[in-house]
């Protein structure tokens, strides 16, 4: 299972995803509407990865724990409390750019 080109298929069929805090992993999972538990590794962690995980947790989109509290989190989790993740809006970017370049 080491390095697949894409985890999209596995994601699609999963009921719960447990992942590290990489932005790609988090966002891809949330966009597929799957419940997500983000596991932070304090020792390896690059602080900036933590920012997104913390914010997503604060906004109620993911659960979050570290390696030692994972089991406890799995036992006590309430996935229904997670909010659905609204998609980003790149069209706002396109409108903005069209406007500043005078293309509208």
């Amino acid at each position, binding site marked *: 299972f080491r390095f697949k080109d894409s985890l999209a298929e596995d994601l699609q069929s999963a009921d719960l995803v447990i992942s590290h805090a990489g*932005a790609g992993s988090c966002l891809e999972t949330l966009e597929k509407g799957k419940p997500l538990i983000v596991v932070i590794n304090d020792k390896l962690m690059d602080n*900036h*990865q933590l920012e997104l995980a913390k914010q997503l947790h604060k906004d109620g989109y993911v659960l979050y724990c570290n390696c030692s509290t994972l089991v406890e989190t799995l036992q006590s989790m309430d996935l229904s409390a997670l909010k659905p993740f609204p998609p980003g809006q790149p069209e706002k970017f396109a409108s903005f750019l069209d406007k500043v370049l005078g293309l509208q």
Partner: protein
Amino acid sequence: TGGHTTEILRLLNCLSESYSPRHYVLADSDKMSEAKIHSFEQKRTETYSKSQFTLDRIPRSREVRQSWISSVVTTLYSMLYSLPLTYKRKPDLILCNGPGTCVPVCLSAFLLGLLRIKRTIIVYVESICRVETLSLSGKILYYFSDYFIVQWPDLKKKYPKSVYLGRIV
């Protein structure tokens, strides 16, 4: 590189065909982005028939957590490549989202602007991963870009000259 490429292609996906031809600049060590770009451009031809784009590589300007001083040296080295490339392409617009590679390219364009050779609009979109702090590229290009876009409100507060449009990827 990986995450940056995915984000920027999502942004490009919404742009009209006025944004053509597209010139992609990659780090020489980047192995994954080229395939993603080809795939994106290929998909685009389904909607827009022709797709005009070029792909160039320059030396990678900085490794993760490389020291400040050596980063200045490696970035200057990358500029030996990015400057003639930017001069050749003379882009009207540069769109970037934070990998180290964007720094020499934007600085080259900025320089060509100062020298009155070509005025390029530089638009920087900070990655969605950046909620509270800017990346190093962001900290530098905040001062050199024409439009600096952030995706979280805390950054808008800290960097008042930035543009906040909400989450755009």
